[in-house]
């Protein structure tokens, strides 16, 4: 079943001058159609201003499409009466961890979503415990969020969404403000959610290394979906990615360059291990 379905979705930002008169519109998302099935790990890729964040905000009814329709779990996002059900089934994690943590103590923050939904007190505690355990932050439950590292804060944010028992989680560049260690922590937690808990994950990012575990990848450019496919299919088109101003992981680039100079390596090598293995095979011959 499709958890998220978008049909011919367009969104326009209205530009206004200083007096508030309409100057013109900017089309951030332009006739995008996609469908995401329950349990998938989806990555949406694109450079700044490609419309990926705007698209993400449609997935839990923060924005409503100017044209077209978005269905989340079978519900139309323009329906005012369904808005809270939609936000419950599609949780969202934002870029800046400081600006999305409301609680003064980790566990209070994780409990914020369930409190809003009117979950009974004992169940809130159960949910907080299981969500914090799922992201590996249970031992920090009594800490103040201000004393955590960026990666830890972002994991708390993920737990906060998880406690609402969503069917899918949309992560809008969750790692953009983190150091490499924090980035790894967060991605590991997200993958575990997808594989162990079976939560549908939609990861929006511009870091290529983060998408290699995705089931499907959408590459966005100027509001359109420019490419779609498995990570391997995407990464085998190095020239195309370069044209879209996206960086290819080092290993993939190295393999591509070697291939171009005549060494028979397969297309779309994603990880260092894979590369070592392939080169080993060649040398062993």
């Amino acid at each position, binding site marked *: 079943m499709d958890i998220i379905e978008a049909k011919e979705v367009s969104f326009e930002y209205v530009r206004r001058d200083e007096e508030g008169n309409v100057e013109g519109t900017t089309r951030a998302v332009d006739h995008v159609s996609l469908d995401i099935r329950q349990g998938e790990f989806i990555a949406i890729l694109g450079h700044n201003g490609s419309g990926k964040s705007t698209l993400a905000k449609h997935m839990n009814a923060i924005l409503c499409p100017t044209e077209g329709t978005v269905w989340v779990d079978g519900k139309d996002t323009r329906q005012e009466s369904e808005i809270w059900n939609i936000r419950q089934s599609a949780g969202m994690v934002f870029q800046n961890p400081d600006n999305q943590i409301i609680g003064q103590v980790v566990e*209070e923050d994780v409990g914020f979503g369930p409190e809003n939904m009117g979950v009974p007190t004992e169940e809130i505690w159960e949910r907080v415990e299981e969500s914090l355990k799922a992201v590996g932050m249970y031992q920090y439950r009594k800490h103040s969020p201000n004393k955590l590292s960026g990666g830890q804060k972002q994991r708390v944010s993920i737990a906060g969404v998880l406690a609402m028992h969503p069917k899918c989680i949309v992560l809008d560049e969750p790692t953009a403000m983190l150091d490499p260690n924090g980035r790894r922590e967060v991605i590991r937690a997200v993958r575990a959610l997808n594989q162990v808990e079976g939560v549908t994950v939609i990861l929006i990012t511009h870091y290529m290394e983060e998408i290699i575990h995705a089931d499907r990848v959408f590459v966005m450019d100027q509001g359109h979906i420019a490419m779609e496919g498995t990570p391997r299919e995407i990464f085998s088109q190095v020239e195309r990615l370069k044209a879209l101003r996206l960086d290819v992981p080092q290993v993939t680039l190295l393999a591509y360059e070697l291939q171009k100079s005549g060494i028979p390596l397969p297309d779309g090598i994603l990880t260092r291990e894979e590369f070592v293995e392939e080169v080993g095979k060649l040398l062993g011959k």
Partner: protein
Amino acid sequence: MLRDITLGQYYQTDSVIHRLDPRVKLGGTLLYMISLFLFENIWGHLLAALFLAAVIRISRVPFRFMVRGMKTILFLILITVTFNLFLTPGEALVTVWKLTITREGVRMAVFMVIRLTLLIIGSSVMTLTTTPNNLTDGLEKMLGPLKLLKVPVHEVAMMMSIALRFIPILLEETDKIMKAQMARGADFDTGNLIQRAKALVPLLVPLFISAFRRANDLAMAMEARCYRGGEGRTKMKPLIYRRCDYIAYLVILAYLVCKVLAGVLL
């Protein structure tokens, strides 16, 4: 310099005082404050000081955290002392030019210092042992009846708790902007008052812009997590009086009785 503000800074440890219901602590602090102004005799103040010392001891918060909050109001205390010293009419002790220090003035000044000190430390004990969220929960519940008069109690409580959460973040940001401006030659420490105030403009403008941006982000994050006001909201930590809360009320009551007795008898 910016880190000296302890108000709203929770000191994390586990003690009986920490676990008390915030309503007890709020009510207790209020009663304690009133008790400080009830009578004017040294034994009563001694009792108040002893009571506070005992509470601090039980709370396991290091004493230096309480004193840190004092620094910010040192100026206020100095002004009060000066006014009381010179402007209280009575029996003259020392006369310099037109200023006279009276016996009553000295007495008043000393009492004022004691009162203010106990007052500030007393309220610091409350803020240091209660998470701001807990505190606003307590306020929300205590002021709950005002909802009938259409006072937006929940909204105000929510705003307070958000403001408190962002104080350390904005302080850190101020520090960062200050360093960035200093690296470009800004001077915050010299010059007269007006020059210094002017130097703060390049600090405040970016700070405000960033605060608005944060507010915008936070509002979106809250909505994404289904926040829609106080209606139909449940509590993760509902406030329920337990035995130790009743005992605490009794202790406060006992203290008040002693204080009144000390005031009347001595």
